């Protein structure tokens, strides 16, 4: 059965009719072709699908698209403004915080949420905050440095 939804994604309103069972991650990827949000697991563990829902980092694979009706969503595609990289994007580039790039969007969305509540996190606080984001390439070493870079830049 189709459910009408209206969602603001990266500042743009999207309305449509979807199945109730459609996950927000699938809605973003399939219906809106915003494929920067990735799906890496079935168990809400890996964090590759992390987006901001009303300003907070959430795992879009564990939210129904219908639940996002009336909400505002930011995906990785919405991080940069007017072609200018967000400091977190700049940090990941400068500190080589990404290799294959698959976990990167989720990492950055979690990191920006962290920096909102804790603008100057310690290394341990950063590592703890990444509990819900898996990376197989970097050993997390440069991801930590990337977030430190962004924190400094945003201070």
């Amino acid at each position, binding site marked *: 059965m189709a459910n009408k939804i209206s969602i603001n994604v990266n500042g743009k309103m999207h309305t449509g009719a979807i199945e109730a069972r459609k996950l927000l991650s699938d809605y973003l990827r399939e219906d809106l072709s915003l*494929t*920067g949000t990735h799906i890496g697991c*079935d168990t809400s563990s890996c964090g590759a699908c992390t987006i901001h829902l009303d300003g907070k980092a959430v795992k879009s694979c564990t939210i129904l698209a219908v639940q996002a009706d009336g909400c505002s969503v930011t995906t990785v595609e919405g991080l940069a403004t007017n072609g200018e990289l967000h400091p977190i994007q700049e940090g990941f580039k400068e500190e080589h915080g990404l290799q*294959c*790039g*698959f*976990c990167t969007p989720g990492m950055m969305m979690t990191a920006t949420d962290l920096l909102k509540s804790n603008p100057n996190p310690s290394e341990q606080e950063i590592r*703890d905050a990444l509990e819900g984001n898996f990376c197989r390439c*970097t*050993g997390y070493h440069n991801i930590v440095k990337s977030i430190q870079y962004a924190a400094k830049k945003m201070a």
Partner: protein
Amino acid sequence: MTKYIGKSVKRLEDKRFLTGQGKYTDDIKLVNMAYAYILRSPYANATINNIDISEAKAQPGVAAIYTGADIPESIAGVPCGWQVNFKNGDIMKEPPHPLLVRKKVRHVGDGVVMIVADSRAIAKDASELIDIDYDIHDAVTDPKKAAEPGAPLVHEELPSNVCFDWELGNPKDEVAAALASAAHVTELDFTNQRVVPNAMEPRSAIGHYDTAYDRYTLHTSTQNPHLTRLLMCAFVLGIPEHKVRVVGPDVGGGFGSKIFHYTEEALVTYFSKILGRPIKWTADRSEAFLTDAHGRDHVTNAKMGFDANGKIVALQAYTYANMGAYLSTFAPAVPTYLHGTLLQGLYTTPKINVDVTATFTHTNAVDAYRGAGRPEATYLLERLLDLAALEMKVDPAELRFKNFIPAFDGVTQPGYQTQVALQYDSGNYEPVLKRALEMVGYEAFRQEQANQTNGKLLGIGFSTYIEACGIAPSAVVGALGARAGLFESAQVTVQPTGKVSVYTGSHSHGQGHETTFAQVVADKLGIPIEDVEIIHGDSDRVAFGMGTYGSRSLAVGGSAIVKSLEKVLEKGAKIAAHLLEASADDLEYNDGKWTVKGTDKSVAFGDVSLTAYVPHNYPEGIEPGLDFSSFYDPTNFTYPFGAHIAIVEIDKETGAIKLKRFIAVDDVGNVINPMIVDGQIHGGLAQGIGQALHEGAMYDEDGQLINGSYMDYCMPRADDFPSFEIDRTVTPCPHNPLGVKGAGEAGTIGSTPAVVNAVIDALWKGGHEVKDIKMPMTPERVWNAMQD
């Protein structure tokens, strides 16, 4: 001349990934595309009596349902690309690996039915309406038990589960005699457990048949599109290779698991023509756990003998290697030519024998996983060495210094001939361990360890490793059983305006080739890096390639680029000489221009390239254009090495291990981009440490993978690691033009035994003289070791 080489140039490919514009296979949407779901066996060993698809087929939106009966007998299945022979010369057992099983499933996850529908949801819904009647049989999952008489047979047409047996090195009696006369023998039984690669991007494949051109396109998450095309065309589907395009777009990590040609790639390709629609299949993570080729899974007994001075006199190793139910693409090579051949390590051991039995079990296939064989060899050697040091009450670092092969550069001094077939290219082993000891502050650490009083146990573990990288030359790997050449190709196309397109057969899935290769090209041509584009991953754009694995891309693929660049400069010089009215011999090339030596007469690279394409004023006998292809087949493997040290702290009450520090000093030869090499080392370390502390696939007796999700399989997280402390020495490779050795696997190969050795060291210091803790070293396993 080296504006870029040796510099940490920021990655040119980053922007698309940072802005969500990376294009992975599942991101691709084709017109009229249908979606496949593969219904897999829930049993490890069962006979299929009947498959009823009638109800599922009738569902709205279901386009087709295919079973093994829909695949012609002529399509036997996916092949194995490496042949190992039995000791008696017989060819290894190589049973077929069908695209969809007709009669007998052999592991949980074996594909039985492919449902194709208008959406993933419809395909999944329909799959639940399919009724398969199975007779369930006993299973065997352990590689050693599988070799025992009476074990349930994985392939009933074979006499046993043994795929092959194999031996390398000095005669066993010579090794036995040396061990018998040794002053001390350390013996260890251990398991190098099965791990799941877990590239973060689950595998995905889209098959598309274009009737207008009678041509197939396969987009797939692969590390080597051309090899996939070759295997699928020539050995599976029997379709002409020129009628198939294989694209490996952005790929979200591989770690070995995306080298291999998988059944799903052939299925979506084959059935896209029959259905008349593109078909996309993407694995769920649960499916990835069951079907991505796993790694390691060796059961080993090894003995190392020492003389009274602590010199190693002999090594004997017996290993059972688990192949899984079917032979994956390179599976037979891993426990043999990538493992047995590395048992010389960094040491002068005069007598070595390794004996391997590979067996089939009712489990998912096992194949190359980051390091592939070399981590297993390193684990064997380094565990024995640290344990021997404890048993003989000598310092583990000293024991290594005593046994290191003396330095040799491979140029003025010959390479080092091992007892196990390989000849090392160049090596200087003492400095890496010395530097690591300096970084760790060894004496101070031993003091701290001796004085510890806080209810914790501190331990230090060492690992000094060597690896064979490059996975080439072709003649050598061919003699060792490879059914493919292992060279690399590169085409350098200089555009009329002097911009350069480089087509490489290497494939980047995180390694940063688009930057590192561009650094090499920009420096060799003396042009800005922005003027270079690296193109890879598409068999229609890149003429041929062997792909990326075995830390080979820069050493082999990079060298192929250098060869083409040399041809460009050679031809360019002739054109320049004509323009300058000089002899080519009188020219020198610097900073992007040819200059007549000793004069200020010069012509720029861009002027020469333009002349090559607008050849109005042009030398006679020279073809227009500036475009060269090369194939590079090296003369030897490359041999990176290093020293890793782990420091751990054990909670005596719980057995929980905290990795406090990890020091790695690696020598990967010359370094083009230090930032990228460091990143490769970091990631490798995390995977190697992950195996020691966190990861391990567990099959129960019925052949069920009991930790097939992230809720049960422990993926290492950011808070499991300290920041790594790394450094390097540089011993150039003497036989390739860049002097590089490869960095992709070093971290994984060296790190695992260092961590285990550190835990064993801590336990001995606490009075628990255990020889082994099974990996992953869970708190309970460590706690149990302290309960004696």
